[in-house]
């Protein structure tokens, strides 16, 4: 896929990969074997008919490919960009056993972008069923749940605390990975399904879940507020000016447009030498954003080795190409300040890997006497998040001992009619997992409300005794 050269792209917020042209896409689609096992489909959290849409591309029927994609995934332009395909569809690709796997993600993005350019939207015929559904949080989980419930005929309202909808897709993931106009295009598609978005609404505080189910008349509510609450290291100097969470750095830059300060009012902390602690996808985003904001040096500080780093291989590769300096097996022990409260440097210790721990990764332990200092003026913590406490503070929802919302396998919570999914149930994960959870919760919600699930009976297979005729479908996909 054509990419901007690392030296050039590290200075701008344009997308790194410009995407396939038609001939690239045709060539790539040719590589798919259309194998009967379809291991890729089982690797996809939402079960997209991958060979089906690739065949569509191959036959130059992009509209047909888009129709197949939107049958299961409603946000192909987003998923094509941000899914960790190497662990999902592409990781199981038959071609990948001997050669490079088929670039399923890039093809998905190609089709998604084509749809945005052409203004395609698959709006099914929706028969209103009179149910009112409320969605708390407009991130990937909420968007996916909203789409399914709207298609089923519910009147859906999505509440968002920020002034713009999109959740982590807007405030977290930077423009060079996922441009905000792409998110807006997908949100516009949801609006075409009749979904209403209410921003500047902090559910729990402005009104509670109990009020939604009660006086506000919602028949079911989905909570997808994300994890959010950032973890600090808890080392000396943590509160120095110039120590901030990746969430803060990214929100200021991406959502509040601090990078265009002072034309936008939100100040953006800019470091000359930036140390980012952690090696997940958020850490990679923070590093690459720091480079684009003008940092001379960006360091990645991670206590395990490259093999254990949770970020996608592609992200680490991109960060490396752009000039991020990786310090594996290194752990900060103190932030050094200059005497007036500003960061001057970071004191670190070398680590070595011991026996595997609960997560199966080898547990790092400090090497005695290996402390060393280095100079930096901005320290960014990207070491994970905890559960946001607002829902727990303001409702009777049962939480688990880590503060996340307790659900059953249908993602129903302890409150009747309230479902939850995404990071607020599982802890920090990926966009596609959150979307999967949103759809799973929607299925649970439909069962709870007694709405016939249009997706299920028709795929039930040959041995269905009470098969439902296709003409009886409660919605029919039409093209606009």
């Amino acid at each position: 896929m054509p990419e901007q050269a690392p030296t050039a792209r590290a200075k701008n917020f344009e997308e790194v990969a410009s995407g396939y042209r038609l001939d690239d896409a045709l060539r790539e689609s040719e590589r798919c074997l259309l194998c009967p096992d379809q291991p890729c489909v089982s690797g996809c959290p939402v079960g997209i008919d991958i060979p089906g849409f690739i065949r569509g591309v191959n036959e130059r029927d992009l509209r047909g490919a888009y129709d197949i994609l939107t049958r299961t995934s409603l946000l192909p332009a987003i998923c094509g960009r941000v899914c960790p395909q190497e662990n999902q569809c592409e990781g199981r690709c038959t071609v990948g056993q001997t050669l490079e796997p088929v670039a399923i993600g890039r093809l998905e993005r190609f089709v998604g972008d084509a749809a945005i350019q052409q203004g395609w939207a698959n709006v099914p015929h929706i028969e209103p069923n009179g149910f009112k559904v409320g969605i708390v949080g407009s991130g990937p989980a909420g968007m996916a749940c909203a789409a399914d419930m709207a298609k089923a005929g519910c009147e859906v309202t999505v509440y968002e605390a920020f002034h713009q909808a999109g959740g982590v897709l807007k405030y977290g993931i930077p423009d060079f990975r996922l441009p905000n106009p792409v998110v807006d295009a997908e949100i516009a598609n949801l609006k075409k399904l009749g979904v209403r978005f209410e921003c500047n609404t902090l559910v729990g505080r402005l009104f509670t879940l109990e009020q939604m189910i009660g006086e506000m008349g919602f028949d079911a509510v989905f909570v997808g507020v994300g994890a959010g609450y950032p973890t600090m290291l808890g080392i000396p100097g943590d509160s120095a000016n110039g120590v901030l969470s990746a969430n803060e750095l990214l929100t200021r830059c991406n959502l509040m447009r601090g990078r265009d300060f002072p034309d936008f009012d939100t100040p953006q902390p800019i470091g000359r030498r930036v140390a980012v602690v952690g090696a997940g996808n958020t850490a990679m985003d923070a590093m690459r954003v720091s480079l684009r904001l003008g940092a001379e040096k960006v360091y990645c500080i991670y206590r395990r080795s490259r093999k254990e780093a949770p970020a996608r291989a592609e992200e680490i590769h991109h960060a490396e190409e752009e000039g991020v300096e990786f310090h594996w097996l290194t752990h900060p022990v103190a932030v050094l300040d200059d005497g007036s409260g500003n960061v001057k440097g970071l004191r670190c210790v070398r680590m070595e890997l011991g026996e595997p721990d609960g997560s199966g990764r080898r547990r790092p332990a400090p090497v005695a006497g290996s402390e060393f200092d280095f100079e930096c003026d901005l320290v960014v913590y990207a070491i994970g998040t905890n559960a946001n406490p607002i829902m727990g503070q303001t409702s009777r929802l049962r939480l688990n001992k880590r503060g996340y919302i307790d659900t059953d396998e249908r993602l129903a919570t302890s409150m009747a009619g309230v479902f939850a999914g995404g990071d607020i149930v599982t802890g920090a994960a990926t966009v596609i997992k959150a979307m999967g959870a949103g759809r799973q919760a929607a299925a649970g919600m439909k069962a709870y409300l007694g709405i016939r699930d249009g997706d299920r009976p028709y795929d039930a297979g040959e041995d269905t005794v009470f098969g439902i005729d296709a003409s009886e479908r409660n919605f029919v996909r039409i093209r606009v």
Partner: protein
Amino acid sequence: MSNYEIVKREDFSDVTYLLEIRHPMMARAARPGQFVIVMLSEHGERVPLTIADFDREKGTVTLVIQAVGKTTRQMQRECQAGAFLYGLVGPMGIPTPPSHARKVICVGGGLGVAPVYPQAKALKEGGAYVIGVIGFRGKDLVFWEDKFRAICDEFIICSDDGSVGLHGRVTAGIEAALKKHSDVDEVIAIGPPIMMKSCADTTRPYKIKTMVSLNPIMVDGTGMCGGCRVKVGDEVKFACVDGPDFDGHRVDFDDLTMRLRRHSREERMALEHWEKGCRMQKSIDRAVGAAAGK
């Protein structure tokens, strides 16, 4: 998008002004001690402001604002009655829990007089004996004296320059009240960090529970950015979701003061940038006016 109408504007001084904004749902939900986040425009920053009052019947919330930085000065210029705010979200933070205190001193310093008012009012309605202590730099800055007098059993006003009431800071007022009453259960102090710090220092020898309301730098106000973290005892708390009320005897005010300064350079830049724009606009207006006059 913008449906947050400013229904009333009142100027207390050259720098302090009051905005009453229509938001019936928020007026219903708001409790003393909570705050909101305001965005003036699409390009604006998110400014946390403590709720100074709310009227459930009229469906409005009241904010009292001091014009200190770029956004608050721009708001002073642009937010007239009938204008709209781009964004208003809240109420945020944990409401002040209902207190069982029988005798309370409510202390407001400068702008802090506004957010301590709903707390004093709630305590009075709950049947407590309320001693109000409010302080300003000078007579010209005084506001809401009558509002306080109406709800307080005892009332002391202080001024730094002696132009009104007791000559001295609010701590002098607290000392005076404590001398008279030995059975004060609780002190609530809201104002600049330095003022809250000295209030906590004043009450510490008396071992009287002292609650303060913190207003550090925030981005989202929902517990997501961690910018508002404060040291309380040996813990790190986020003022937006764990507060904003904390035990004043355990708050590390020096840390808070230092962290409040972290964008001072950018704040100056923003102000200069904006003022330059205003001056340019003025000269354009003048030039256009002159051309039209010809």
